[in-house]
């Protein structure tokens, strides 16, 4: 499906990031690149991925031409973190850190890679957003702000790049079994499950499949959209 195409997924050691890499690898993607904050997180079955160790928090200070001196067709902006707290207790550092990694890093990566995509007149950009960007979530003002900002970015970028056969979309996961939801306690999980019509958490491959679809030829005419993958939790 992805023959002779190259992919970069940020945050390829997390649950969703690993599944995206695996999905593209199993479907014929040529080179798979990824980023991680620490090479020790790379799993033994990820030797097919070419990792770059870097911190997206300060990516604006790095020389991206040197680090990313390769060509890609698919860019999946997946890396993200959360630093939850009620807003009145949220520190400036936690606000900035989340906005930097989840939103600002995309600015720098997109500047670097979309230039090359414009030149070759092909590209598929997929952001990983979140259902809470659309519903809000107490304790996640920074996280929801960063993810909601992506939805505007997706639309503007989709319009700007559409004449060059570059599509820009996002996938908004609901609650997915992942390193992020593993942090929740049983009470929190049960409360969430009650709200999900399908009565189960999603699987990281549910997200990987949606990303794969948006990069596939079947989605050639889809741009500026958000695909909600949330078991019915929020119908938007």
């Amino acid at each position: 499906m992805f023959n002779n195409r190259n992919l970069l997924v940020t945050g390829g050691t997390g649950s969703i990031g690993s599944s995206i890499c695996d999905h593209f690898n199993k479907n014929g993607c040529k080179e798979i690149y990824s980023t991680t904050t620490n090479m020790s997180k790379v799993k033994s079955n990820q030797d097919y991925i070419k990792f770059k160790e870097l911190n997206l928090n300060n990516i604006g200070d790095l020389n991206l031409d040197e680090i990313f001196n390769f060509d890609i067709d698919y860019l999946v902006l997946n890396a993200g973190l959360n630093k939850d707290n009620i807003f009145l207790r949220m520190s400036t550092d936690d606000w900035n850190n989340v906005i930097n990694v989840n939103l600002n890093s995309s600015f720098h990566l997109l500047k670097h890679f979309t230039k090359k995509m414009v030149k070759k007149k092909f590209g598929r950009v997929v952001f990983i957003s979140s259902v809470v960007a659309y519903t809000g979530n107490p304790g996640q003002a920074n996280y929801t702000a960063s993810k909601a900002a992506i939805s505007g970015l997706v639309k503007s970028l989709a319009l700007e790049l559409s004449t060059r056969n570059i599509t820009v979309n996002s996938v908004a996961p609901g609650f997915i079994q992942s390193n992020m939801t593993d942090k929740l306690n049983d009470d929190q999980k049960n409360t969430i499950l009650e709200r999900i019509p399908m009565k189960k958490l999603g699987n990281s491959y549910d997200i990987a499949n949606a990303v794969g679809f948006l990069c596939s030829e079947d989605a050639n005419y889809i741009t500026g959209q958000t695909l909600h993958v949330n078991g019915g939790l929020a119908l938007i």
Partner: protein
Amino acid sequence: MSDIEERVKKIVVEHLGVEEAKIKSDSKFIDDLGADSLDTVELVMAFEEEFGCEIPDDAAEKIVTLKDAVTYLSANSN
């Protein structure tokens, strides 16, 4: 016509698909030669490649005519 002007013109002809005779020194890429804003980005990338130099965004924004490109590249190319 200088060597630089000739090379710049060749790139403009190739990228915008316009006839060479229609390109004047003060022709604006967007207003006169039918380029869109992304074409100007591509033109700048092509200039960078041809002349082996890097054109920063603030300088690139000021290159709106053939003459602007020739002036910039005469002063900054290797």
